[in-house]
């Protein structure tokens, strides 16, 4: 007894001594541990936000920071109907709004906040390329608060729901899982370093996932529709949501009614969000065309997906028209997420749903049109939700997700937070706690993994210190891309196989009990 008590110790997430090292953190229950970890996660975010953002001091186009600021400027100074329309006051070629209306509303609210404290930073025209100490600070705080208000509560909801259905889960594992979800280095780097609001759409998605797990399908549909309306990229998860909910509904007494209820909620949410643009077809199509920037090509920069990687051998952009590339990528994406969808329709289960999210996000990342490096955040999210089942998968995908964004973050001058957060992740992942057994089981082909880690460490060093040969200025980016792509493909195969090998009957039983 005395000994057990001794171990309570320590700090924020994890740790310490032999039998139950996390007791201090978890003895007050999930809420207290969540609170502690969440405050630490906020602190880390606040510290990351001290660093530069994308395009800082880099006219004329700057970067994502300027895009977000410009949207605030547009939304608070122009009427709703003008937001997506090219006009003398709204030059769409300069960071025109290209996210769905919910992002625009969010920009509006944040714009009001900025205007209240620092009007110059969002005044029409004159604020273009605005960069100031105070302006940056306020912008950073809008992300911090969005994170704290959307992502954190969503994760909390998820944890409560997820562990309600598995009462045997160890409390210390829960705390570890919370830390892993809240301290995801990629998300922190992109949102609080590079500057975006992924925390909102991902937070809404996590909320929707939690609602699905707690069998509140209508809430899930509502939240996921909001996520879709915040960033169209949330559609990466749509096949999983669709197949899981569809699979569930057709097993109920009145399938048609169930499906139409969900459909109505989705439709209703969309109508609500799109209301200002529904008065005429022209306005509606105008917004829609902004959301699908096909003219930007099938890939950008060096993203570790199929099209970009194979373009070294096959010049897709030259061989096909944009139109046929669209169809090609659509076909590839759909056919690769089909297996996981079929599995969920045949045997919907909570666990299978999480794998399904991961698989469909992977399919989209690897095969869909116009993918960006940052899109790896989407497969990363379900991977972190699955962290307890698949710790190794999570570690691997986090490493390579980070690595695939390394060139981007170097450009943003975020190398220091990149390494600090990677180290933080590794420390938390390997936190001295009682999870040795799991680690042992998973380090199967450890020679291969060690080699791969060495390889990527070496590449980091080479990328930072060496100049690429003049003939191939993007040689290192291409090598990084190859390495990351190969790992993503392996992981994608693995998680698809995993989803299909889930014990069908066991989960069906559980489902029934919950229903």
């Amino acid at each position, binding site marked *: 007894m005395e000994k057990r008590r*001794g171990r*309570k110790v320590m700090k924020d997430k994890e740790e310490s001594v032999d039998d139950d090292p996390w007791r201090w953190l978890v003895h007050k229950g999930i809420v*207290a541990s969540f*609170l502690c970890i969440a*405050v630490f996660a906020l602190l880390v975010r606040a*510290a990351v936000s001290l*660093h530069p953002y994308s395009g800082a001091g880099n006219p004329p186009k700057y970067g994502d920071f300027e895009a977000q600021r410009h949207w605030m400027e547009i939304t608070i100074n122009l009427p709703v109907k003008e937001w997506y329309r090219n006009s003398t006051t709204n030059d769409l070629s300069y960071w025109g709004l290209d996210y769905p209306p919910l992002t625009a509303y969010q920009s509006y609210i944040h714009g009001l906040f900025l205007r209240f404290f620092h009007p110059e930073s969002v005044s029409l025209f004159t604020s273009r390329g605005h960069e100031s100490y105070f302006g940056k600070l306020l912008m950073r705080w809008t992300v911090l608060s969005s994170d704290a208000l959307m992502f954190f509560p969503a994760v909390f909801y998820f944890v409560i729901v997820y562990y309600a259905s598995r009462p045997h889960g160890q409390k210390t594992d829960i705390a570890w899982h919370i830390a892993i979800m809240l301290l995801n280095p990629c998300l922190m780097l992109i949102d609080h370093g590079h500057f975006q609001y992924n925390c909102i759409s991902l937070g809404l998605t996590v909320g929707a996932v939690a609602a699905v797990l707690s069998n509140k399908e209508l809430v899930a549909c509502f939240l996921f529709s909001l996520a879709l309306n915040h960033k169209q990229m949330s559609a990466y998860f749509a096949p999983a949501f669709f197949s899981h909910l569809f699979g569930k509904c057709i097993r109920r007494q009145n399938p048609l009614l169930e499906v139409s209820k969900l459909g109505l909620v989705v439709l209703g949410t969309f109508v609500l969000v799109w209301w200002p643009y529904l008065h005429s077809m022209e306005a509606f199509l105008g917004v829609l065309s902004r959301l699908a920037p096909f003219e930007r090509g099938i890939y950008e920069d060096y993203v570790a997906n199929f099209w970009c990687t194979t373009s070294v051998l096959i010049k897709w952009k030259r061989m096909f028209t944009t139109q046929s590339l669209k169809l090609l990528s659509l076909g590839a994406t759909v056919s690769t997420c089909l297996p996981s969808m079929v599995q969920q329709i045949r045997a919907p289960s909570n666990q299978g749903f999480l794998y399904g999210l991961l698989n469909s996000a992977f399919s989209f990342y690897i095969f869909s049109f116009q993918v960006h490096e940052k899109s790896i955040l989407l497969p990363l999210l379900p991977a972190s939700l699955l962290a307890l089942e698949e710790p190794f998968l999570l570690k691997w995908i986090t490493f390579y997700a980070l690595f695939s964004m390394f060139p981007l973050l170097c450009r943003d001058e975020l190398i220091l937070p990149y390494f600090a957060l990677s*180290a933080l992740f590794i420390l938390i992942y390997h936190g001295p706690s009682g999870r040795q057994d799991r680690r042992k089981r998973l380090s199967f082909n450890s020679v291969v993994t060690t080699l791969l880690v060495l390889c990527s460490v070496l590449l980091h060093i080479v990328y930072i210190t060496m100049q690429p040969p003049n003939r191939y200025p993007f040689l290192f980016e291409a090598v990084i891309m190859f390495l990351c792509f190969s790992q993503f493909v392996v992981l994608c195969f693995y998680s698809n196989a995993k989803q299909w090998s889930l014990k069908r009957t066991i989960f069906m039983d559980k489902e029934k009990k919950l229903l």
Partner: protein
Amino acid sequence: MGLQGATSTPHLLWFFGIATCVKLLLIPSYHSTDFEVHRNWLALTHSLPLSQWYSDETSPWTLDYPPFFAYFEFFLSIFANLIDPQIVHLKKGLNYSSNTVVSFQRITVILSDLCMLYGVYRLTKDLDSKRRTLIWVLVVWSPMLMIVDHVHFQYNGFLLGFLFISLSYLEEGRDLMGGLFFAVLLCFKHLFAVAAPVYFVYLLRHYCCGGLVRGLRRLLAMGAVVTAVFAVAYAPFVYHGQIQQVLRRMFPFGRGLCHAYWAPNFWVFYIILDKLLAFFLRKFGFATPTPEASFTGGLVGDSSPFSILPQITPVTTFMIVLLALSPCLIKAWREPQPGMVTRWVAYAYTCGFLFGWHVHEKASLHFVIPLATIAVQNMDSARHYYLLSIVSCYSLFPLLFEVREYPIKVLLLLLYSIIMWLVFSAKFTDGEEAKATAPIKKEAGHVAAKKGGFLIRGIEKSYLVGLLVVEIWGQLLHSIFFGERLPFVPLMLISIYCGLGIVYSWIWQLRWIIRSPES
């Protein structure tokens, strides 16, 4: 126990690793003029011969730490020179603030914290593993060190490491080594000398005992060791005839009683009392002299800033500190117990902080961090540390006055309060343990046993809530009610309010020392 010790040591490194990640992230944060001070010291130790270190006046930030620190800067400057020669250039480097120099200096602080890591490890290596891990968290994760060392910029973690090493030797009973490391510490930063009387009395009674001959021999040994350390430090300057200049730099009594921002100590109340007296006397028609110097204006010259109460001189403060120390010295004289040394030393620094001359708010680190190592001994200490660490961390807030760091300092303090609450309540959840480890304060242990956990009393709770009120007043309400007028009031409120907490801590420590059983 030995086995446990072996398995839990990686945890210490793990905590340190997590803290290091946060420290790295804080590299681009605000840094005070202390940053340029240390950069200038790098430059002057690198560019000038030793004989001119203490006489150079190229920059206003002249070298005013003892020689070991200068040697330390000289050592660092070797690497600085390799990384970017401009850092160590006496003239071109002035106010140099490129990313290289910021990263370099920040990383030296982070690395020098390894010294503290070793100190804490050494101090706790014989404790049971539950208690030591607890101490590690409290020390390694201290928000005060984070704020002062890694944002504001200083090397306190490094210096406290020497204090910990010295204390660990004393607790082991190896007094000679303890004395040696304390002498080394004094040659790094002479502000630590406040504890010298305690060391002196303790070593005299504990080490130099056992008969006249043996005692005398040991006294000589200790004297020789300490002299040797000081000789290494100061001999080169004596050789160059610089010793007077060194001492003049190290003891600049031209500065005022209080710093621009008043450290939350006794003198705050003294000043306030003076102001109030003057105000009321004037009301009742007495002519009172108006002081020429103003406290809120920063440094104070020679003129007396007091209208009614007597002038305070450095000698007065020195006498008061000694007086406040005397109960502790008597105790150390009568009963020199190794187990009490940390408390005594912390108490000495508390006295120095409370009554000293020109005290910086940062000096509260000198006693709060050592007190962390005894906070887990019993419920009463834990409760005291909970309050003290929050108050003294809060009193550091004005150091980081820029808006950008506001969320960081608030989150640091909030996180630490939550961790302390979780840690202490996990430790004291069971009544028996609280009682078993708190023989001195039975009532406290008993109360805890009944309530089943770590609880702070109502008065302490309301005091902490008051802290929140003070903060909200300073951040928000003051400007609403007074606008631009009376700009010094928010800071003054912080000083006064935190001063109350520190005085409480002083009384608590004093009571503990007086009441501790004479085994």
